């Protein structure tokens, strides 16, 4: 809960993303300061996931500016690889590498991208498997793991790069209800460690308990940005009210 003004780790100014004539993100401004947990909610198709992909330069942008740790994020530039190493990304569909074991999944990027020694990385990876409570599954292949286990391996894989920002793109949307809790618990622990997190989710409970800020996006714009308790109790905007109403009462 950082309230004193810190310089933002991520700054998004006037971001516009279009596919042809179709506008997906329509002028988004967002600052994220270190240690902050920002939860983004909103109906599907409003550019939440696209926003995350723009932040690590997986998508080129048509307007505005994204700055990560004082460096501009430019898709297809030479500098974008170095920026991505400092941003961990967790996907809705896990995207573990199926030809590698869980441990190899976690070790691949630190060894091949950062050039660290396999021995040191393995030690760190073992620690991460304990953190996500999967030390007994390190040598399993992704196909042998449940969805919740795969997602926790994916979190360990992101953490192995010692990222300065973690981005979660609907991390529990593809999970069986009984495994959602395991993943949310790990995410909550990461937040308590003081990690900077940008989370796109429909888990309002998570937003309420863990989030420092809640952002409601609709039609490619940020409609409302306030502390979660406040937004959930008193949504100011009509669309926010309708959206929260629809997902809280079912």
């Amino acid at each position: 809960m950082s309230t004193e003004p810190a310089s933002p780790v991520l700054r998004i100014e006037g971001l516009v993303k279009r596919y042809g004539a179709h506008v997906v993100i329509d002028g988004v401004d967002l600052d994220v300061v270190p240690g902050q947990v920002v939860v983004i909610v909103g109906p599907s198709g409003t550019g939440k996931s696209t926003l995350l992909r723009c932040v690590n330069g997986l998508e080129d942008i048509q307007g505005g500016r994204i700055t990560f740790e004082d460096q501009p994020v430019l898709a297809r530039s030479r500098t974008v690889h170095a920026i991505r190493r400092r941003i961990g990304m967790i996907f809705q569909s896990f995207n573990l590498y199926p030809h590698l074991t869980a441990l190899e999944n976690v070790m691949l990027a630190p060894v091949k991208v950062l050039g660290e020694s396999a021995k040191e990385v393995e030690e760190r990876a073992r620690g991460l498997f304990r953190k996500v409570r999967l030390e007994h599954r390190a040598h399993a292949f992704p196909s042998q793991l449940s969805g919740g286990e795969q997602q926790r391996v994916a979190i360990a894989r992101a953490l192995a790069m010692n990222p300065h920002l973690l981005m979660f793109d609907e991390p529990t949307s593809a999970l069986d209800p009984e495994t959602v809790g395991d993943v949310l618990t790990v995410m909550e622990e990461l937040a308590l460690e003081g990690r900077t997190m940008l989370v796109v989710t429909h888990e309002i409970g998570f937003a309420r308990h863990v989030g420092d800020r809640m952002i409601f996006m609709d039609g490619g714009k940020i409609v409302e940005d306030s502390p979660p308790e406040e937004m959930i109790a008193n949504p100011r905007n009509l669309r926010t009210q309708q959206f929260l109403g629809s997902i809280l009462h079912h």
Partner: protein
Amino acid sequence: MSPTVGAFWYVFLTGAAVTLWISWLALLLGGLVGVIVGMMRISKWVALRWLAVAYTEVFRSIPPLVLFFGCFYGLSYALQLDLSPFAAATVALTATASALMSEVVRAGIESVTHGQWQAAYSSGMRYDQVFRYVVWPQAIRVMLPPSIGVYISTLKDSSLASIIGYVELTKSGLLIRETTGISFEVLLIIAVMYFVINYSISLVGASLERKFKYVH
């Protein structure tokens, strides 16, 4: 087997060895060219993609027999390029095999989901690293079974080299038939030999496939 034909066992075996050798060579070269053309197919440059499509379509559409004639007589007539039967057969077989392999490579690479690319790029990998550590190891597993098919079909196509005087298994049989005057038995023997070779390749392919499965 009659003793007359049996006396030529060494010629049969040599013919089979030559067939194996030239089809291996064609598969190797065809695989190499096929990887290059297949990668061009997914390139971000339109010109490269076009070139790759043209190559694949041309050499996939011309019958191997016509390519054999083209490489042996055609190149000699048009460019005064006199290739030996071996060289002409290798070029013709490679052209067909590479066209087929380029499709196998493209399909293999495209079978790797978009999410895999995204995950790999998100971890800071460059294009070549994504390819080497994430995409290629997965694509190759998809490519293996159809590659075995290409090898078998290349091996069968190599029998056409007999027509330009290259002495592989079929030509060996034809020569023995001329010498002995015995037709049926000779053809039966080469048919059985082709079957044994190709069936063995199938079996090796199937065992490689099992070995390459993600979970053992």
